[in-house]
């Protein structure tokens, strides 16, 4: 990220001018307040309301302090509304999607960047074309494929494989991993080959350990995307006991009181927010990377 770069638009000399110092400084302070209200506000509201009695939230939605706490909201959501089960489902789905994406992106990127077969160009072109196809085009045929797979006469509805495997077909992942591999020093690969390392050894002992930064970025976005996904799991998982939190939340709303529902939503936010705060570098760099590649 850009923290280390000295600001360039406004020079230190500019900052000494009162107009700039008060104008710009004021604008930045206002922006900070605005960001706190807009970025953090709704989450804090959710956190407060998750432990506030339903009646209080309804009658005083913007009250700063609740009249009495209702910690029971969280327990009721977790146990009685089965948020615990849906939470676990979400984790299982995210883990499988992550694993599938990492396997496909690293092996594919390695083949295209390091092994470079003669058909690599064709594969590259085919991958790039998928970037230009909007996701909506895939929706219906993918669904039909899951319901009635070709050759196999067995529906994959309600199977997590129906989520894990399509998630791995991300050309974006393969391409950013390939680009990272492209920039690894070739001399090391040559040295390893001379020392007798085969392609598997080279992949496992040299390329992967050198690629932790990009694997971090891909992992963080794989897990977040899976946690956020709604439409696809809604279509392919019809059994409520298998559905992730995001799919269950709209139904939970109809079944329970506002306080318990808000508690369930708060629980659904915890993992992404905690993950973001811990791995913020990967998040923020990865997002910038996305812009760089799309550009």
């Amino acid at each position, binding site marked *: 990220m850009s923290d280390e770069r000295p600001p360039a*638009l406004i020079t230190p000399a500019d900052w000494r001018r009162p107009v700039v110092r008060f104008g710009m400084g004021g604008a930045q302070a206002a922006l900070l307040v605005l960001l706190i209200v807009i970025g953090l506000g709704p989450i804090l509201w959710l956190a407060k309301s998750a432990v506030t009695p339903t009646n209080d939230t309804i009658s005083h939605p913007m009250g700063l302090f609740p009249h009495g706490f209702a910690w029971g909201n969280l327990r009721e959501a977790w146990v009685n509304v089965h948020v615990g089960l849906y939470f676990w489902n979400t984790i299982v789905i995210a883990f499988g999607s992550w694993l599938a994406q990492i396997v*496909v992106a690293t092996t594919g990127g390695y083949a295209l960047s390091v092994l470079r077969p003669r058909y690599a160009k064709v594969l590259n072109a085919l991958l790039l074309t998928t970037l230009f*196809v*909007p996701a909506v085009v895939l929706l219906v045929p993918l669904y039909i*494929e899951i319901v009635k797979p070709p050759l196999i006469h067995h529906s994959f509805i309600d199977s997590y494989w129906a989520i894990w495997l399509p998630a791995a077909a991300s050309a974006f992942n393969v391409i950013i991993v390939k680009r990272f591999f492209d920039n690894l020093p070739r001399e090391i690969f040559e040295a390893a080959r001379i020392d007798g390392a085969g392609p598997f050894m080279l992949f496992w002992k040299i390329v992967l350990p050198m690629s932790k930064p990009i694997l971090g970025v891909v992992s963080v976005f794989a897990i*977040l995307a899976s946690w956020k996904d709604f*439409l696809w799991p809604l279509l392919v998982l019809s059994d409520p006991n298998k559905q992730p939190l995001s799919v269950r939340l709209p139904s939970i709303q109809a079944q329970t009181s506002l306080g318990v529902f808000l508690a369930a939503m708060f629980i659904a936010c915890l993992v992404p927010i905690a993950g973001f705060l811990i791995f913020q570098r990967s998040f923020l760099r990865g997002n910038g990377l996305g812009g760089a590649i799309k550009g």
Partner: protein
Amino acid sequence: MAISEVKVEPAVLPGERLRVRHTPLTWLRGGGLTTLLFCLPMLIVFGLFSWYPIVRTVVMSLQHTNLVQAPTWVGLDNFRAVLQDPLLPTAVKNTLYFAFLALIFGYPIPLAAAVLMSEVRKRRGLYSVLAYLPVVIPPVVAVLLWKVFYDASSLGAFNTILGWVGLGPWPWLQSAQWAMPSLVLEATWANAGGTVIIYLAALTAVNADLYEAASVDGAGLWRKVWHVTLPQLRGVLLVTMILQIIGTAQVFLEPYLFTSGGPANSTLTVLLLIYDYAFGNSLGGDYGKATALSLMLAVFLALFSLVYLRATRSWSEE
């Protein structure tokens, strides 16, 4: 094969490659099988879940399919049926309206925020974290939470705030007029952080010498932003604009969860219509119509992008 090899060979520089013949044996000895093994996960996953469905869309749009009977070829009937659907103009109009509002709300704000943030001297990281926080909230949670905020009674969260300054209560999602702007407001909140981070990354690449040169020429702050920052960012600005248009053309979650397309179809978008064709009817979907409409949307977006890139090429490469 022989002809194509003869054609290819002169292009290879003499001495660059001694072995010109590629037999299966040399392929195997050169590790071709291992390479193929490494390609295999990618080939299988993309073949099954990306390339095959893309082709299948085209086929299905020309068929009548209901998963029970064998599909029958119906030519362009699906396209005709979609184009004659009285809901299509409504959906197209609403989607364009959403995209237009999203550009008005969501395009200048992240840019202004990013320019301001890039000049922050202390705790720049805090600004980025706060701006990005809404992006990590699961979209379903964001929409359902805002749905609570948008409560149209005077006790709704937003209406309470409006009440403090003597306004409202506003109907928000319940009025055909305000439903769409309400959707866009939430979508902007949820997505603007990602754009801010992209702009921040692009701003670090702006050459500081240009600012200095502008200062030497006597340019003030605004003129530096106008004549240096914005022109330096134009490549990124053009890309984020087209990506945003492509993204908003496929908006689904907000209208689906907030309003289910209502009130009075005022938030029915193209994607919601596709969903309704395919999955809205419990008696079985009209997959032919759904694929026909998604194909038309995709072709429109591709043509639009092409025209856009052509039209802005001279400007972005200048």
